């Protein structure tokens, strides 16, 4: 953002405060800078995807987009503070599987017993939903999911698999694998993917369900072996990698999604306007390419569609988390 646009933004913001805001009309939107809260640190997956998309979105808007990183507590800190802002479309919140799952685990959106995202956030759209990659250290001596399952069965609780933390998607994907393949692995939690990947490269841990961009470059280099993707169907970005289900673990599907949210109570017309702006931006070839470099494929959804999907998927993760907790 340039200084003059920042100055302009500040003046407009001051003006809005002075005039007291008022109902936002979809056709006037945005009439002031739009804050996008990213509850993770700059440089991470959520941040990079958010910046790529909103850099494009901002081009179509007369007002600038202000990216605000508020990291902490797996996304809870930023999400909780942004949730309390007015539902006027000027505060948007980026979220990942991890940050929404954290909300649910704090009991938020659980009033009815099952997770209902709409109780706490307005889902706007999904940005992308991508598989993790099952990556192993070459010293494990397996080159397919079948071999991995066979090895794990012959030697229970012996294969150390790393995750980016207790209850993280990379941990729970491993739990799902244990459940469906009927094996037992040894979980070793790390603090973040950045700490776990070097341990995998060094051979301290032998297996990881990792974001593609963090392990595939090393697989191309021969330092790791990528066995499969965790999605139900093969990923268009890595068509040569089989799915875990193809490797004999029937019904296996785990994907990590990135999405956009707003505080609850956004007026439907406005919600549609934001959804359209973001969806259009994601159709831009440059954005598609930049996302592909991140291992992400654009997967926009309508707000209702996205709400149902999030609710169903979070429920699945919560079940796995309960299983993982019982195992501890």
């Amino acid at each position, binding site marked *: *953002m340039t200084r003059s646009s920042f100055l302009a933004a500040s003046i407009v913001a001051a003006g809005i405060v002075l005039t007291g805001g008022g109902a936002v009309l979809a056709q006037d939107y945005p009439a002031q800078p739009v804050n996008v809260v990213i509850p993770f*640190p*700059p*440089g*991470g997956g959520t*941040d*990079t995807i958010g*910046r*790529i998309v909103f*850099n494009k979105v901002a081009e179509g808007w007369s007002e600038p987009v202000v*990216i*605000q*990183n*508020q*990291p*902490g*507590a*797996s996304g*809870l*800190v*930023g999400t*909780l503070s942004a949730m309390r802002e007015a539902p006027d479309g000027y505060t948007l919140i980026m979220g990942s599987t991890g940050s929404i799952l954290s909300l649910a685990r704090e009991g938020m959106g659980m009033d009815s017993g099952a997770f209902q995202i709409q109780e706490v956030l307005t889902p706007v759209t999904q940005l992308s939903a991508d598989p993790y990659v099952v990556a192993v250290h070459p010293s494990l001596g397996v080159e397919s999911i079948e071999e991995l399952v066979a090895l794990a069965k012959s030697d229970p609780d012996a294969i*150390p698999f790393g995750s980016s*933390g*207790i*209850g993280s998607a990379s941990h729970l994907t491993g739990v799902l694998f244990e459940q469906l393949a009927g094996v037992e692995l*040894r979980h*070793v*939690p*790390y*603090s973040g993917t*950045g*700490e776990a*990947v*070097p*341990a995998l*490269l*060094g*051979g*301290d*841990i032998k297996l990881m369900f990792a974001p593609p*961009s*963090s392990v595939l*470059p*090393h697989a*191309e*280099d021969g*330092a790791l072996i990528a066995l499969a993707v965790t999605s139900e169907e093969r990923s268009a970005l890595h068509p040569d990698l089989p799915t875990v289900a193809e490797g004999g673990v029937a019904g296996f599907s785990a994907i990590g999604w990135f999405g956009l949210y707003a505080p609850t109570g956004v007026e439907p017309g406005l919600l549609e306007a934001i959804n359209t702006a973001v969806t259009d931006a994601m159709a831009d070839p440059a954005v598609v*390419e*930049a996302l592909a*470099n*991140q291992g992400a494929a654009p997967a926009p959804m309508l707000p209702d569609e996205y709400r149902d999907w999030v609710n169903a998927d979070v429920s699945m993760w919560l079940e796995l988390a309960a299983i993982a907790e019982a195992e*501890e």
Partner: protein
Amino acid sequence: MDLFSIGFPTALSLENLAYCFAGVFLGTFVGVLPGIGGLTAVALLLPVSFYLDPISALILLAGIYYGAEYGGSTASILLNLPGTASNAVTCIDGYPMTRQGKAGPALFITSVGSFIGGTLGIAVLMALAPALVSLALSFGAAEYFAAMLLGLIAAGTIGRGKPVKSVVMVLLGVCLGLAGIDINSGERRFTYGFFELFDGIPLVVVAMGLFGMSEVIASVGKIKSVTEAGRITLRSMIPDRKDMKASIMPILRGFGVGSFFGPLPGTGPTISAFMAYAIEKRIARQPERFGNGAVEGVAAPESANNAAVQTSFVPTLALGIPGSATMAIMLGALMIHGIQPGPRLMGDHPELFWGLVASFWIGNVLLLVLNIPLIGLWVKLLQIPYRLLYPIILCMICIGVYSISNSVFDVWLVIIFGLVGYGMKLLDLEPAPLLIGFILGPMIEAQFRRALILTGGDYLALMQRPIAAAFFACSALLVGWMVYAMFRRRKARPVEELPEVAEGKTL
């Protein structure tokens, strides 16, 4: 050689030269200002990198990162206020030097030390990157645990007072470090219902509170000013032969320490600076000089933290693994441009790698110029009358802390730590051992438990890994030597206590 055929032509283009200068200048600036460090500046400039070439963006952001390590020592030496967390240890001897009228030589030696540490660090980065990568990867949980344990034993007594006070401070630091979600069990410890404490207390908050904010509070009502250091002229900066001679080896050792810790993900300039200081104090003939303006005490840590920032690019560039939050932002800047960091970066984008390395050389020369002939500029910044400067510094610390995660909670925390730090000053307890316990304690715990999960609870297996075993042996030797030295001292001087050194205390 690629450095000359690809690197320098890229880095010397007018545009990239300008970004390099802008980076190191801005880095020095935020480094000099207490509270605001490289991380804040790099995060703020990340959006700008959208509009730059990837190489220009990287040169700019990297310049800020290593530039801040140069600037950070200035306020440590002149005001007893560390510019960044990794310069905290420089206060211990830098400020006493100022009080003895040796501010000029102290600034000179830290700049030269930074330059030597930095440039040798770059040489290591170029020549030994593949070796350092395999060293870094051979560091598993057991090795980290063993190395950090040695570090804690070595650095536990870096304070200048009684050893027992240091040990208590280290333990307090370890306890503070326990706050947050326990990595191994997912349990919350000492979070008192605050989500903001889930990830633990940020290092910058502790460092800036205990060293920075407490110093500002302590100086209220006291008349002191940088002018007491005398005018800093180029002539007054040239150290005498004795100081010069005394700093050469510490600078080289500091470089060694920095280039060992730099490439290890998770460690970095702050640990390097503390370790370099601890080593100097351990091997000194008269360790009691430390804390009273020992020139080795400024030379070694400043060389170490600069060597560490340069070599910390090894895992970032060679593996695409960020060793720190700042490095993660730089990788983010690359990814936004569609460049995939990883083992192939060097081969696929040689202009990026070699251009950046060439810019490091250029940047370090620029920094030497900025910090020796032009030091007056930065000193002027700190010569604003105190009644104005100190409130400004308080604001800077708050802004700097706030900007790390845009969290008001952290601002409250830094104020609390400022008050605690002031109380510690009154009780004559030192913050340096606390900080080292705070940094190393949680790492030791997490790595130890992780190592045991990996070995299935077999303690002996930890000792069977050669690198870890070597570190354990060093730890054992060090403890043995400490006990032996203690008994010998007792025998030699049965009644006499160690001379408590009153001079150089800031209060």
